[in-house]
């Protein structure tokens, strides 16, 4: 049964209750309605923040986790919890999301405080992703409105009361390290590439060095064996390497010149061969449409009349048609 949930016998019209994930509501009616031929008892609640109305069947009130608003003692225990230095959040985002969802729906006011505190401490390690930031904001809003309702004070005072504990005046927030979030495993910090919750979803190459190419194995084997033994001893101490391993450089021959830097981009156009000495220089290329060829003129013919353009004049009607 969710923490603090009320039985229907305890609910009366006018009571202030908390609907999980919705906030403080007031019971406006408890009456019987006929739905799909069945007669059911519904509890009608109106959210104080914006007046939204929700109707909950009698059988579901306890299962949903509807509970009475916290009292002053509960609020004191919330402040004490926020002041204390408890367990840090799980770095596995899946586990964290599941835990936070459970706390929001079934944890009561203390569950809300746990979500707020956990995410606030996690934000001191790294910035929260958008979804978790929204969850933090939502949990904060619900906690502030319930504390304000419990203490009978303005929301701004309830928020400042909570923040004086989370952000004590005169002190900056500490910068945390992943080691603080370790869960008692000495060899494994529990990170395993899961800082951004990928958990092997990306198809990255393994952390091991790629095998050397066959042509170069003979040259590098002797050199490599000494390095390998050093590597083995240092590997145990050094932290795991992550990401793509560096590209293996090709072995250079002893007398080879250092390789020229790689050229990039389109190779330059080959220049045409220079003309022999004494020849006329090539005429520059002509560009554009070539001129139209003129029609051949017959000998002694008159020059052609210029072309007439436009619509030909309308033919005049014959004079005999006029009256």
């Amino acid at each position, binding site marked *: 049964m969710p923490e603090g949930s009320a039985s229907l016998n305890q609910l009366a019209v006018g009571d202030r209750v908390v609907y999980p994930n919705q906030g403080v509501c007031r019971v406006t009616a408890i009456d019987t309605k006929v739905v799909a031929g069945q007669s059911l008892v519904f509890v009608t609640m109106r959210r104080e923040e914006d007046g939204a109305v929700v109707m909950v069947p009698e059988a579901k009130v306890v299962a949903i986790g509807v509970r009475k608003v916290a009292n002053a003692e509960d609020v004191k225990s919330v402040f004490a919890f926020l002041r204390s230095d408890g367990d840090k959040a799980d770095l596995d985002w899946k586990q964290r999301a599941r835990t936070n969802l459970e706390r929001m729906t079934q944890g009561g006011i203390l569950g809300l405080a746990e979500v707020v505190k956990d995410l606030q401490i996690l934000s001191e390690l790294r910035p929260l992703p*958008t979804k978790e*930031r929204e969850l933090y904001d939502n949990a904060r809003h619900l906690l*502030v409105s319930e504390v304000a309702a419990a203490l009978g004070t303005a929301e*701004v*005072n309830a*928020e400042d009361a*909570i923040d*004086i504990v989370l952000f004590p*005046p005169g002190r*900056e927030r500490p910068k945390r390290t992943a080691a603080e979030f370790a869960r008692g495993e000495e060899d494994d910090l529990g990170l395993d590439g899961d800082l951004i919750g990928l958990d092997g979803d990306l198809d990255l190459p393994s952390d091991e060095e790629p095998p050397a190419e066959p042509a170069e194995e003979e040259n590098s084997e002797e050199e490599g064996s000494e390095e390998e033994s050093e590597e083995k001893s240092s590997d145990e101490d050094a932290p795991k390497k992550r990401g793509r391993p560096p590209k293996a450089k090709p072995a250079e021959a002893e007398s080879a010149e250092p390789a020229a830097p790689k050229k990039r981009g389109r190779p330059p156009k080959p220049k045409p061969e220079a003309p022999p000495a004494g020849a006329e220089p090539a005429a520059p290329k002509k560009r554009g449409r070539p001129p139209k060829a003129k029609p051949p003129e017959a000998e002694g013919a008159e020059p052609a009349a210029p072309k007439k353009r436009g619509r030909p004049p309308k033919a005049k009607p014959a004079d005999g048609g006029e009256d």
Partner: protein
Amino acid sequence: MIRIVTLDPFEEKPLAKLKSTLYTAFGVGSEHSGSAEIPPGLGEPLDAEKLLDQVKGIRAYQDDKVLLLTSRKLKERELPSGVAPTPGFARQGKDRAVITLQPHKDLETSFKPVARHALHQLGHLWELHHCLDPRCSMYPPWTPSFNSGEPIFCTFCREKSEQKIRLAKS
């Protein structure tokens, strides 16, 4: 619209700069809507909640947010978890906020921290909560680094405030 109402004399130049800073932050026009008198009987330090309730003579439309600016000290609030420093006060989602110049001397030299406090209290009027980002103006205002930041919002708070302003307009 954001209406700045001064409870004490201030110079016009820094007020004009404050107006343009508020416009840049919220995307809502702002103007200096004159001055008002502090209600009699409110001794120094001023009780911020009573000041918001009792100050009269402010003309504003229903959607407007009023920012009262004073150079006098505001009384610290006694809360269940401790004493809250009060450089400003605003009720969540309501229409009036008050900020003080204290402990600074004048608006021109201490423009940045005062503008940041103004953004913070106006953010509460648009239902923004305190932020986790120290660079954001919605970070808790009693932290040591608050006064040295720029008068801006983080992306998250900016989007939320725009959403609230859009909802209020529709």
